[in-house]
């Protein structure tokens, strides 16, 4: 039996190094870390995964999940594998190649009365990436994570063979792949059940709250009635105002409430180039937060909203990660189980604030039951997602400190965001890791599939 602390044995790839594929700089959305790697882009994605150590989609995970462990590893890029293969308008079940972008899927599905059952906070992700990270959204308390709606997957596993898996077929492999960060096999095709919607518009309400406890109470209560809930939290406010924020809740508008025409896709304005380091200064963001909070006012805002504006407000600004400059940033996302200790979120934010942590953006969500994905992130509690500029050692120390709180409270972090958590801390957060590694060992005894993250955090051999 393999113990989680035992690194997977690794045999060098038999396939030669692809010198055809040029070395380029690869990074996740946070530009932290940046590595040299060989990314293979092909419309014949299935063929291109043969001999590849990892596959990646749009590279929207923040840290090193989609990065190769070594410059000799080939990373197969799925984005040109974007075909829809079958759709059943009675059941809503769609089968598509793994590189299909969520933005394309939404543009197709919204006018037809369907929507992805779960969406992350950006539509610039692929179906394969959504499965690998087992993404969750504002409706986690209602719909669970994306994997709960995935009915089947087609994978290329480490020995090169192609395997179809689902709850009825290779169930163990299926469940390890939901949230398995692409480490169980290359995800080639995804079959998912879409959700029927009454109209393609959102009915949204927003309300501000002066302190964290009321905000969390309101978030929990909103979840009983509303399918979509989320909070923006002001982490730079001080004293009693720390953790004030705005609660947003939404549902699909009824046809009588919605405009007659379907929403038109929004054109994005993009940050044209990498901004200088330190452009986002704490005092400026603090002032922005104060203004944003003040301008919302005390009254509750209600109305019909464009679904892109409701689900993907940051996508309106393309390449916004460039605002953080070349040093990049990390997003720290954790879930804290508050059932037995309601004071946890406040302690967490105080801790962050006391250590001088400047989280420029903080999003708080209500997590429901744990899903069937073996390593999938959400579990019941309150989830915080913090955007933190990367400054080297001090940032590492901050993440270490936050990880300590998470370990002590029985919470866990989200691998799709992580760049800095240490292996020993992750192991203490993740009692399911041993089972996950056992399944990997069974399907990949030679340790062919790996990422920079799996080397860093799961102890895979370089």
């Amino acid at each position, binding site marked *: 039996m393999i113990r989680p602390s035992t690194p997977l044995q690794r045999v060098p790839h038999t396939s030669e190094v692809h010198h*055809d*594929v*040029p070395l*380029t700089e690869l990074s996740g959305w946070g530009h932290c870390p940046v590595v040299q790697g060989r990314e*293979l*882009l*092909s*419309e*014949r994605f299935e063929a291109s995964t043969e001999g590849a150590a990892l596959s990646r989609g749009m590279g929207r995970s923040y840290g090193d999940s989609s990065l190769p462990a070594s410059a000799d590893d080939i990373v197969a890029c799925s984005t*040109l594998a974007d*075909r*829809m*293969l*079958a*759709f059943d308008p009675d059941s809503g079940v769609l089968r598509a190649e793994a590189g299909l972008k969520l933005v394309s899927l939404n*543009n*197709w599905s919204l006018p037809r009365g369907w929507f992805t059952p779960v969406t992350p906070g950006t539509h610039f992700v692929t179906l394969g990436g959504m499965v690998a990270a087992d993404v969750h959204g504002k409706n986690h308390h209602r719909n669970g994570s994306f994997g709960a709606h995935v009915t089947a997957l087609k994978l290329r596993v480490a020995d090169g063979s192609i395997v179809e898996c689902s709850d009825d077929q290779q169930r163990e492999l299926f469940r390890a792949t939901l949230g398995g960060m692409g480490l169980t096999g290359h995800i080639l095709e995804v079959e998912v059940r879409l959700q029927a919607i009454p109209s393609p518009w959102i009915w949204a309400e927003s309300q501000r709250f002066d302190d964290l406890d009321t905000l969390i109470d309101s978030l929990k209560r909103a979840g009983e009635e509303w399918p979509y809930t989320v909070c923006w939290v002001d982490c730079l406010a001080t004293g009693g105002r720390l953790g004030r924020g705005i609660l947003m809740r939404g549902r699909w508008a009824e046809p009588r409430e919605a405009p007659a025409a379907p929403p038109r896709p929004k054109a994005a304005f993009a940050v044209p180039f990498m901004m200088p380091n330190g452009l986002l200064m704490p005092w400026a963001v603090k002032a922005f937060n104060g203004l944003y909070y003040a301008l919302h006012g005390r009254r509750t805002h209600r109305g019909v909203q464009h679904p892109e504006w409701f689900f993907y407000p940051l996508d309106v600004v393309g390449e916004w990660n460039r605002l953080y400059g070349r040093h990049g940033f990390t997003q720290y996302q954790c879930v804290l189980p508050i059932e037995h200790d309601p004071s946890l979120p406040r302690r967490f934010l105080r801790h962050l604030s006391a250590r001088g942590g400047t989280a420029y953006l903080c999003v708080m969500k209500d997590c429901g039951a744990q899903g069937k994905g073996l390593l999938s992130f959400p579990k019941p509690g309150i989830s915080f997602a913090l955007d933190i500029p990367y400054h080297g050692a001090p940032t590492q120390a901050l993440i270490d400190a936050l990880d300590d709180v998470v370990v002590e409270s029985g919470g866990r972090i989200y691998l799709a965001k992580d760049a800095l958590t240490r292996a020993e801390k992750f192991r203490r957060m993740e009692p399911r890791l041993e089972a996950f590694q056992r399944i990997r060992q069974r399907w990949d005894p030679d340790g062919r599939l790996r990422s920079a993250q799996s080397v860093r955090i799961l102890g895979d051999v370089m």
Partner: protein
Amino acid sequence: MKVVAFGATKGMGRALAQLMAARGDAVFLLGRDRDQLSRSAADLQIRGASGPVGMAVCDLLDTATFAPALDQAAEALNGFDAVVVTAGLFDSEERLEADAPLRDRLLTANFTNTVHFCELARVRLLAAGGGTLCVFSSVAGERARKPVILYGAAKAGLSHYLEGLDHKFRAQGLRTVLVKPGFVKTGMTAGLKAPPFAGEPEAVARSVLAAIDKGTPEIYVPGMWRWIMLVIRMLPRAVMRRIGF
């Protein structure tokens, strides 16, 4: 619009066919690989193509497949009013110089046989009273450059041919759209380092579709490449000998 798309299982051709399907055009696919054709046909069907998306095997290296494939398309679509050719081969200059059979295949496919195919398409479009012939050439055909001499030579010939068609047949209703892509990130260019102003297939497809609708005779995609090539065309020979671009 009723479109015959040759080479639409990959790259810019695929992105363009997806846009056409999404707005309800009727599409018929021509290509080498039956399995890939049927995957693409399913995709276009789901995206909203009107009528069943048909397909026929058609190989740029086998001219005997051209006429039957176009006939099948005409029958399935009950006549067509646009033909889009994105099929073509690509390889590095080094390999083309070293490998004569490979060189022969690429030159034949990208020039001679593409012209043969276009001639068959032209005759059919004109017989039906006119229509659009959209062909993907390349900025590599604009000025001889060291990394793309052989590929560029075939594309230069192809561009020349299409310009001639425009001069001679536009008055009779044939609207040729000559597309000159710069660097676009598709599987074809996957082995190459992307230069600045590299395009994405989807954005390129949007520009090309607008050109097809307007009947623009010549379009550079991304648009920036018109100005890049303007500069490159003006560079003196002494400079071209020295630079590796």
